[in-house]
């Protein structure tokens, strides 16, 4: 299991990186953390002719937090984002999800943006980006574009990233006032890809009734499946919402598949169980958030944290 040969490029500047990517086009592949790409190369399931190693682009390692949300640079490792107190304050779902990504040692090297670009429907971060309505910033020679999550994930292991483009950062919107999040998943072994997993976001109104509730499901379809369950659970008080009805709504929407680890039926069932759990927990966190933050949120956030 040795990777096939390739031309290694180690640009020192973003412009240089974009030049190489432009020149190599569909034969070029970006190497950041490599925790998904290198296994595929070692198995010779991926054989890019050119590898553009961006690990020397220091400017891309920042985790920037602001009132609107968290911008994660292309070289920010999972562990770095997970540790960022600022990021956790602005958008707690990031840390909740990152703790479930593989194992600590993989998180030391793997990058959040790399995980988004890899676009594995069984992975946590794509679901998080989809749930929060975040976006990915793609740079190419001569310009950048921000692609919203809803358009970014186009299929299993497929994204909107085009030849010649580099995903330079991802933006995760901040937690709204009186809102809470949770991530629940079940995997075969600790750290494995989830058999099913649900990220939940619940926003309450001033009377602490559910104003909006959404769930994003992993391993439930070709891309992360976001389900708006607001109608299903009704505008009930946070503690009395019908999360089981929400779970039923989730089960109806998802399209899990059989694989060697679990049947589609089990995944559907499990996703519902986890949706109810995650939504209930998110609602609880929202109540806490409403109590605790009293009109201010992410008060402690600071820019450039952890870069």
């Amino acid at each position, binding site marked *: 299991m040795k990777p096939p040969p390739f031309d290694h490029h180690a640009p020192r500047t973003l412009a240089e990186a974009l030049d190489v990517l432009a020149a190599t086009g569909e034969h070029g592949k970006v190497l950041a953390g490599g925790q998904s790409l290198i296994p595929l190369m070692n198995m*010779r399931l991926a054989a890019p002719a050119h590898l553009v190693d961006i690990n020397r682009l220091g400017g891309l390692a920042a985790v920037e937090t602001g009132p609107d949300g968290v911008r994660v640079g292309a070289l920010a490792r999972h562990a770095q984002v997970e540790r960022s107190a600022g990021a956790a304050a602005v958008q707690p779902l990031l840390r909740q999800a990152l703790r479930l990504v593989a194992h600590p040692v993989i998180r030391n090297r793997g990058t959040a943006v790399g995980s988004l670009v890899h676009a594995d429907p069984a992975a946590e971060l794509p679901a998080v980006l989809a749930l929060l309505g975040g976006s990915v910033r793609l740079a190419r020679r001569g310009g950048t574009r921000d692609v919203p999550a809803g358009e970014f994930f186009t299929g299993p292991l497929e994204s909107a990233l085009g030849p010649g483009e580099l995903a330079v950062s991802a933006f995760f919107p901040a937690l709204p006032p009186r809102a809470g999040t949770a991530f629940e998943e079940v995997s*075969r072994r*600790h750290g494995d890809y989830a058999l099913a997993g649900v990220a939940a976001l619940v926003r309450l109104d001033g009377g602490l009734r559910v104003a909006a509730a959404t769930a994003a499901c992993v391993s439930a379809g070709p891309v992360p499946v976001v389900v708006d369950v607001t109608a299903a659970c009704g505008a009930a008080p946070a503690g009395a919402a019908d999360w089981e009805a929400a779970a039923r709504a989730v089960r109806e929407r998802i399209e899990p598949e059989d694989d*060697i680890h679990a049947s589609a039926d089990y995944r559907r069932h499990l996703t519902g169980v986890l949706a109810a759990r995650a939504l209930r927990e998110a609602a609880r966190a929202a109540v806490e958030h409403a109590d605790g933050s009293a009109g201010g949120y992410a008060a402690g956030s600071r820019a450039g944290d952890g870069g």
Partner: protein
Amino acid sequence: MTTRPFGEAVQRREDPRLLTGRGRYLDDLGSGALAAAFVRSPHAHAVVRDIDVADALDVDGLVAVYTWEDLPERLARPLPLLIPHPALTHGRTALPLARDRVRHVGEPVVMVVARDRYLAEDACALIRVDYDPLPAVVGLEEAARGERLVHDDVPGNVGAHLVQSVPSADGREAGEAIAAAPHRLEFRLDIERSASMPLEGRGVYARWDADDASLRVYSSTQTSTSVRMALAATLGLPLPKVEVIAPDVGGGFGVKIMHPWPEEVLVPWAAMLLGREVKWTEDRREHFTSSAHERAQAHSVRVGFDDDGRVLGLDVTILHDHGAYTPYGIIVPIITSTQLPGPYRLGAYRVAFSSVYTTTVQVTPYRGAGRPQAVFCMERTMDRIAAHLGLDRTAVRAANLIQPEEFPYDQGLTFQDGRPLVYDSGDYPESLRLLKELIGWDSFAAEKERAAAGGRRLGIGIGCYVEGTGVGPYEGGHVQITSDGRVHVSTGLTSQGQGHETVFAQIAATELGVPLERVSVVTGDTRRFGYAVGTFASRAAVMSGNAIALACRKVREKALRIAAEALEADPRDLEITDGLVHVAGVPGASVPLATVAVLANPLRYAFDDEAARATQFAGASPPDRPPVAEGEEPGLEGRGYYSPIRSTFASGMHAAIVETDPLTAEIRILRYAVVHDCGNLVNPMIVEGQIHGGVAQGVGGALYERMVYDGHGQLLNASFMDFLMPYATEVPHVETAHLQTPSPLNPLGIKGAGEAGVIPVSAVIASAVEDAEGIPVMKMPISPSELFDLRRAAGGPQAS
């Protein structure tokens, strides 16, 4: 300090080396060697039409490409069938490289040798093999239907069929005893495929010395002596010109007892042909598809029993999947067949197995070797009986246990060593009592009820086993005390992490009365000891341990004889303490073993002051006798062999408490308890470690690991991503208690311990999950998804 370290939990001698990166595993050797890689079949079953290597020839660094056509006559034949058996009427083995037919994904077709492994793989990728695919044969049922054949000349795909039958005391055959029994049950039990999966794969590194016309081969093997003989035979070399060494080996668990592998003969052959060092290090994907698996068996059970649950008749029909070839014979189903009765006295017993070919990786023993299946079968049967009669599961077992006064107990079967299966010693009722106490069996019902009140589902399970260990034919040991007072021990069998350097040193230090630090041990190196069988069947401590003890006793006797002369004492009055031979009770009159070693080897030439004492003018030997007496040999050394009349039988009982999640169907082991009896313990710390590791592999087999083939014979989970070996987060804490019933069969009174831990785990977990869920568990492993399916099939309330 004490010179009786036998029985002490001394720290391992191997560890300082292994902890500092100074271990030397196969791939750590031969830094300048060429690398081999293989083109392997992507099809489960196909005709090989043509091989086109032209494109590969352009690869920079390519040295050689070999196909079956290139092999000399001795290598072009099928590999050996290691353990022939009269019932194996249709044994088949593979060619080192496929000629015109491949029978499983991963079968080697072309060997490439290049400057390094990267380049060798580049070349492999450019070789085009034209295959004509044939239908795959996957799974026991399809194989048994025999509509599609794996080997054209094996009708019905049946390689072997064997029946053993033991009538009851009153002469009834099992069928008759079952028919006459007050209660009868009939059911089927299944276990899926898993594999040994050591973290170091296989590997071979060969050095041909053209000047000396000799071959030195390093192999990550469980048997270097047998690889050596196979190589000499296959390559047509004189045995003394071939040496095989097992370096540090990163785990074996059975798969490395198989030999010679295709690579194990091809790599040395290429090294000879090329006059260059050649090395092949198996990668993980190769290990999944090109080594060996085990466990897949289906068992159809018919049992008759009385009101107390006593088994009056048991009839088991086994279907065994041995994969594409049978190089290791039918040892696995033979062991299942014969170890199935476990600690029980069965009325009448009949067992029949058919071993069938499939187009999958071959099956050879994996730790436990057929016993996990046997115990799953017997223990599930005990639980079914208990459920049928409404009795406590331990009560049914107690009613069937062989009693301590019944030893030796003859089960009336022929074991894997071809000898009668006679249990030598044990105390099963005491074992059961200890286990119930350890796990809190009798108070569990209340605990379960309390948990249920809180919405939690708990279950308790039990599994008992007897394990034939220390099978023959023999092992040997060599012990030499040199003139510096050091003790050099060697034995032919190999080590894969069991701490042999430590336990054999403990035995030698104790037997010889020398400090442990002075003893060094070498295993698995044919340069040091050429006669051996190998490490398998929990036999190393029993076989080599006793052989080394016997060798030490010879050396000790000689040392006392020589020292007696030097001390002018009667050898019977002498003992050895801390390396000094002295008159018992007279500490002043002593001679160091180092000096005895000097005196044992009459010299002409002095190479140091100590040696001068043994030269001809030093007066060391009386002038009226030959310096080396008739019948004596120079040197203070000796060889011992231990060859037991039959196996010694260890035993144990496990229990577990599990929790199943009512919603997610996740299964968690809350507690795991083990009572273990392997006779006298040489090193309790090491035995305990063996149990922990065995249980962890058992947990893997019960809840996580399986080899998943699709209908086309593709292995769908050939990676650690999808073959779910448990991490620290999945393995429960193991609580242990020991019973020490010495074996009367060997001088040290020991029994094997290596495989024990893994044997009953699937039975125990199935028992516990069934108890928690109230749904029969007849197949293992079980995943949350499968438990979910069982719940639905049982029509129970499915919360959602």
